[in-house]
């Protein structure tokens, strides 16, 4: 059985506000019975003060789904709609004294139900999560690209396991794992591009080809990488440098170094090696650039 915290157990066995509010003026629905969990959140909001005076949940799901729903209602009652809108899934997790990693999506479901209820209160038509944002990635749980990339960005996810835990995508037949990795890579790559565009970091992360050959940092990084490559090559992989700055090293892993487990392990190792050789801690990320037309 799961190692649930005492608070999770308490909120499961004695759920707070497990009810449908008859006089609700905001309703949020997320999930579905075929996916294994669903939550309907009903709120009674005071129209003058915008205070959430009461909240009720109805949940179909496992112990932690019910406990997360219960915690959600306790967290938002007494807050204004604007205050409640700031609630994160992590606050639900913290309130419950932690959730097993595999059950993180229960807290996400709570936070999403709140978002939906607030949108309903404000009369906003929420973009339906019914795979209308980009490609449908996970067929088992009907999770689209938009939802995954938002989760990756918002929570700083880096692995398939993270994505499964937060969105369920990829948690069943596993056939979409490659597509999920591509979404993760894309989000991370966009972040890199954004930081290139940031004026506070001029020239810091230019593509290596356009870096002045005299850049001491790049030379140093290339030299270190040259010493590390044989280890990866010995295992059937390889690595090349994409970009280097004082804040970030972007490499491109290939061969046996890739794949969801290996990428993490290899990057972790490279990060250790670089940080040691450079004498300061520096993050290393993987990005496979798209083929560039010949200059």
């Amino acid at each position, binding site marked *: 059985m799961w190692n649930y915290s005492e608070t999770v157990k308490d909120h499961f066995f004695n759920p707070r506000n*497990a009810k449908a509010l008859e006089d609700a003026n905001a309703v949020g629905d997320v999930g579905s*019975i075929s996916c294994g969990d669903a939550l*309907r959140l009903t709120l009674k909001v005071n129209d003058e003060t915008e205070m959430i005076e009461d909240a009720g949940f*109805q*949940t179909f799901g*496992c112990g932690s789904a019910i406990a997360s729903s219960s915690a959600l209602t306790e967290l938002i009652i007494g807050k204004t709609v604007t205050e409640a809108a700031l609630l994160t899934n992590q606050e639900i997790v913290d309130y419950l004294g932690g959730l097993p990693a595999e059950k993180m999506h229960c807290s996400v479901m709570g936070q999403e139900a709140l978002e939906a209820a607030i949108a309903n209160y404000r009369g906003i038509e929420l973009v339906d999560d019914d795979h209308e944002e980009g490609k449908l990635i996970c067929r088992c749980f*009907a999770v689209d690209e938009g939802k995954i990339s938002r989760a990756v960005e918002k929570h700083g996810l880096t692995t398939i396991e993270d994505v499964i835990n937060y969105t369920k995508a990829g948690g069943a037949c596993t056939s979409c794992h490659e597509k999920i990795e591509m979404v993760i890579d894309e989000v991370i790559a966009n972040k890199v591009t954004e930081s290139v565009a940031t004026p506070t970091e001029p020239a810091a992360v230019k593509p290596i080809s356009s870096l002045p050959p005299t850049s001491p940092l790049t030379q140093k990084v290339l030299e270190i990488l040259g010493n590390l490559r044989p280890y990866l090559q010995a295992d059937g992989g390889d690595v090349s440098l994409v970009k280097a700055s004082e804040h970030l090293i972007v490499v491109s892993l290939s061969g046996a170094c890739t794949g969801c487990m290996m990428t993490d392990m290899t990057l972790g190792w490279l990060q250790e090696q670089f940080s040691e050789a450079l004498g300061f801690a520096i993050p290393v990320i993987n990005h496979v650039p798209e083929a560039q037309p010949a200059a």
Partner: protein
Amino acid sequence: MKKNIYLDNNATTKVDPMAVEAMMPLFTKQFGNPSSIHSFGDQVGAKLKVARRQVADLLGALHDSEVIFTSCATESTTTAIYSALKVNPGKKEIITTTVEHPATLDTCEQLEREGYIIHRLKVNKKGQLDLKEYAGLLSENTALVTVMWANNETGTLFPIEDMALMASEKSVLFHTDAVQVVGKIPLDIQDTEIDMLSFSGHKLHAPKGIGGLYVRRGVRYRPLLRGGHQERGRRAGTENSPAIVAFGAAAEQAELHLETMSGKVKALRDKLEQGILSQVSHTFVTGDPDNRVANTANIAFEYVEGEAILMLLNQFGIAASSGSACTSGSLEPSHVMQAMQIPFTAAHGTIRFSLSRYTTEKDVDYVISVVPEIIDKLRGFSPYWKDGKPLDIEAFEPAA
């Protein structure tokens, strides 16, 4: 006082006190290695011989030497599959089903990656196979048929004797994972065409860490583990003598209690099932109710989720299990429930109650008395349930 009712006997069982008693001296005085020439070894060797006979009797095997002791049924199944492939190097096809135990499923999946062709027989909504489909797949390219005798989740029995006969007419090797039937139904394996049969100790009140593989005399065989003459060279490794002796004692007890299974245990199972079904609406039995092992009841509760049910049962001191996704850490309902196309309103809410000869009528009555309130409580705050009835589910579900 909190009860202590164990209804998860398809997962594992309590060790028979007589088995415990039988194994104890092998930890203290008779600790010798049966391969040794001295008397420490001899006295253990004699005990293993008795145990092998006891287990062979339970299976209805003609020769003691047809029983190979292994570490578990997963090892037995793996050994049987790889043995069949090695003795049939030119044959690249395996016939199995979609509802096997992972020991078979995952091994076959790996073999598929290595280039073997795996035919997986489907089941219908009652968990039954289509023998016409099976007959059409048997061919001179088939290296092995490996099919479970009874399903671990539903208890549904497959017509293994008929299937073995059909395989033998095509000279195809036949293995069955009999983990859920050995000790539950009378077996006469010598009168069947089954070539290999895997079984486990801890499902029949022997300790964990001991399993067995029956290999019919004359069936070509290659060992998985090499490096010793133990088990007549068919499974190397020093014998787990305490567990083997306990296995023998447990097998003897299981054989003596076969009528308890088909009598008392079946009656209790039926009472449990009827007691729940008659009190709780929107529930049904999964699998083939008329054709299953006597100890298993798998009940689907619509509009509630299995892990939540198990947690509440556990509060009442009742241990059961679920095919629900959430209990296993995966996100999908069990492959067995999916293969049977259980309706989505119930696929996450299946609960398996598996009894044993130690289950009492008082236990069953208690379970019957608490299940309705558990389901009521959970349906009480399910968004799909209102005033004792399910809501129109289509209103919630996006069109498929």
